[in-house]
């Protein structure tokens, strides 16, 4: 049994069990972190492929809107359908955009992604039927057919589903990264030319990885919309994508667990800064970012891998 997989599963079970006893605010922070973590999971796949997207808010937002518009357009508010809708919409969109974006690298990939996400922002801000910049409220009324509002533990069930989805995404991505194709991501980052000259298609792999990361972002967005209960176009604004990039760099891309750790640290720091220095939280967040970038160049995860290395020389 793979150690990482064991750790992920133990972690998920621990979260589900302790979620029952945890104070509600901690459950909420954890939920938010898991949603961010799922998005960042997709980002690290891109980072491993050598790409950083400054526009992943596009899929975060699309996923959320796909989930949220099921009710007004189709009268559906089943959580499972919401997640499926998010997967479908993000898959189709990223598959189409992928034909274009897979040709781009470096800052140009980042900037073209940014442009697309800002176009979505503009479109949504213009559509009064969808509440324009105010967005609208989203509720999942049932999950697997169980009415959530009638249950005393409805919120807890949403938490469990969020943990479960994150666990599934995390596990699948870990397995993918270890497969022949997944391994090629790093090869592409190192040397695209060599990959082509060994006979594998760089464009195809980038395309596939792009779609996977988009779906993960969409799932993160859908889960977020369900926990927060509200969506608006800001999810597609460049600052949202910027946050994802920050969590990604902060986490480090060497493990699939890192994004969740990074997201948890990020949400806690931000929450802390908001509460304890409401006037200067930006300053506090900025300084923290610099400290992490300077002292942990490989991301937070390097703290753990260092300890691991020391432990087993």
């Amino acid at each position, binding site marked *: 049994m793979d150690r990482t997989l064991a750790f992920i599963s133990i972690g998920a079970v621990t979260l589900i069990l302790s979620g029952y006893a945890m104070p509600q605010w901690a459950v909420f922070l954890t939920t938010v972190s898991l949603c961010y973590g799922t998005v960042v999971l997709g980002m690290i796949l891109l980072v491993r492929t050598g790409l950083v997207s400054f526009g992943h808010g596009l899929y975060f937002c699309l996923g959320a809107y796909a989930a949220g518009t099921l009710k007004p357009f189709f009268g559906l508010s089943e959580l499972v359908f919401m997640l499926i809708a998010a997967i479908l919409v993000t898959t189709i969109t990223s598959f189409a955009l992928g034909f274009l974006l897979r040709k*781009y690298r470096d800052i140009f990939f980042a*900037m*073209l992604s940014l*442009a697309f996400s*800002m*176009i979505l922002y503009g479109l949504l801000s213009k559509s009064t039927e969808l509440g324009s910049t105010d967005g609208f409220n989203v509720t999942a009324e049932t999950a697997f057919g169980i009415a959530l509002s009638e249950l005393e533990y409805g919120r807890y069930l949403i938490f469990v589903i969020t943990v479960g989805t994150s666990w599934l995404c995390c596990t699948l991505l870990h397995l993918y990264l270890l497969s022949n194709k997944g391994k090629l991501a790093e090869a592409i980052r190192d040397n695209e030319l060599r990959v082509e000259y060994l006979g594998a298609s760089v464009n195809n792999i980038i395309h596939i990885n792009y779609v996977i990361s988009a779906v993960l972002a969409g799932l993160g967005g859908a889960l977020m919309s369900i926990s927060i209960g509200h969506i608006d176009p800001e999810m597609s604004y460049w600052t949202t994508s910027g946050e994802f990039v920050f969590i990604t760099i902060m986490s480090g891309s060497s493990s699939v667990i890192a994004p969740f750790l990074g997201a948890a640290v990020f949400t806690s720091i931000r929450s802390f800064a908001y509460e304890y220095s409401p*006037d200067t939280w*930006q300053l506090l967040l900025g300084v923290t970012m610099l400290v992490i970038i300077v002292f942990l160049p490989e991301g937070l995860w390097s703290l753990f891998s260092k300890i691991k290395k020391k432990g087993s020389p």
Partner: protein
Amino acid sequence: MISFLAILIDGLIYSSWLFIIAAGLTLIYGVMKILNIAHGSLYALGAYTAASLSGLWLSMGFAPIGSFVIMLLSAILVGIILGPIIERGLLRFMYGRDEIVLVLVTYALFLILEDVIKLIWGVNPYYLYQPYALLGSFEILGLTYPNYNFLLLGSAVFTGLSLTWFLQKTQQGKILIAVIHDSEIAAAQGINVEKFYLITFTLGATLAALGGVLTAPMISVQPGIGAETIVLAFAVVVVGGLGSLPGAALAALVIGLVRAGTVHIIPELDLFSVYLVMATVLIFRPKGLFSSQEERKI
């Protein structure tokens, strides 16, 4: 006819403003490979400094025309003080890191400076509207424009020309181009690359501040003015081809005219016209308008 002319004039004015800000950004990227988000804060700092200092000048009853000198001095002041502080104090420890990490470093800096501005100037707006009307106005086909807009246009042209002159005709400029081309080779040839980083960043910061200074008379200077500006400047720089000065000029022109056109003809599209231009250009010219496609040597 009127609206065609209006689109042209409005577009040109807007382009001038875009270019002044984008010129510094593209220069910094060209030399240092840093996409500087804190450029937006330097822009805001320029506006605040000009509003405070020129406001002081005016309130002391000196000749109003002198406020233009004060404005120029404000830009230089911000550039000369903050440029070196940021470059020597922070950025130089980051050289060699990934481009994306550098973007994040400047993002962190942007957050910090936003609050620093708030701590220094508070949240109440500052005004410097006097210079805007000081130069009189001209009328064309029934449309009035303050002559101040000429100052904006003139500054943009002057900035563009003097930078081009500096890069192409002076010894220092030529070395700078060498650094832009390949900083490693330049360093190997004994060029003090670090010195040029410092010069470039200071120059870029001054240009950012100049953009803010020139905008101050047209707006109310208050928190948040840097954030919107920086994304626009990004779009210009990317559309033009990162690091290319003529590219930035052309991109500013295109974006300026397109925006003016949409406002006049289809105002609904205003919100994302800039990004549509950006996406369209990148789709057809993946590295922007002005950039040589380099074959990789194998």
